């Protein structure tokens, strides 16, 4: 069964550094999402992406964040200047149609020192 894959599984970065989290969605999916889960808190929506542009973003997704689909397979989340509070598990998800279940990757654990 096709899977969403995320790399790396764990990223440790110094505060203020840039970080790029990578995702390969399921190949025929059209809608892509990033979510995050701070330790002990609920999973929160960050951004949705469709037709090569951001379709919606949450209040969390400020100017420090950006997403890109640089080629036909990868979907990346960049944090320009990381803060301690960016430490969280970041999940990528994709679906073929709006409203259909989203398929999630195993997540990237981001630790900011």
């Amino acid at each position, binding site marked *: 069964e096709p899977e969403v894959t995320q790399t790396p599984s764990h990223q440790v970065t110094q505060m203020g550094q840039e970080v790029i989290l990578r995702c390969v969605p399921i190949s025929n999916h059209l809608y892509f999402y990033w979510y995050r889960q701070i330790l002990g808190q609920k999973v929160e929506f960050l951004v949705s992406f469709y037709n090569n542009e951001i379709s919606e973003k949450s209040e969390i997704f400020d100017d420090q964040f950006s997403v890109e689909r640089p080629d036909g397979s990868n979907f990346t989340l960049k944090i320009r200047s990381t803060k301690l509070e960016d430490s969280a598990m970041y999940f990528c*998800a994709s679906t073929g149609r709006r409203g259909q279940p989203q398929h999630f990757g195993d997540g990237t654990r981001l630790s900011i020192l």
Partner: protein
Amino acid sequence: AQSVTQLDSHVSVSEGTPVLLRCNYSSSYSPSLFWYVQHPNKGLQLLLKYTSAATLVKGINGFEAEFKKSETSFHLTKPSAHMSDAAEYFCVVSDLLRGGSQGNLIFGKGTKLSVKP
């Protein structure tokens, strides 16, 4: 605004006994509801979905959930717990029917299920 409330942060059952994980939702529209499971150090796996076709929804691994509009509930049940069911379970609503939404998911806080031998 749509939201979900999971009433228990932690549920502990003995192997072979029934499981009940409670979820209430708030929605201005007929919602799309899901249950996802997260095993330690793994991603979120879909257990089942409700999209208005039938109120009793069967999912994987023997789980099922019943949509009750009058109670705004979507509780997850399983007749007999297995050790491998120990995980965190999330009740989720899709934001699809809000104008402009791309179907973003709104998660409950999760219920950690422990299964004792």
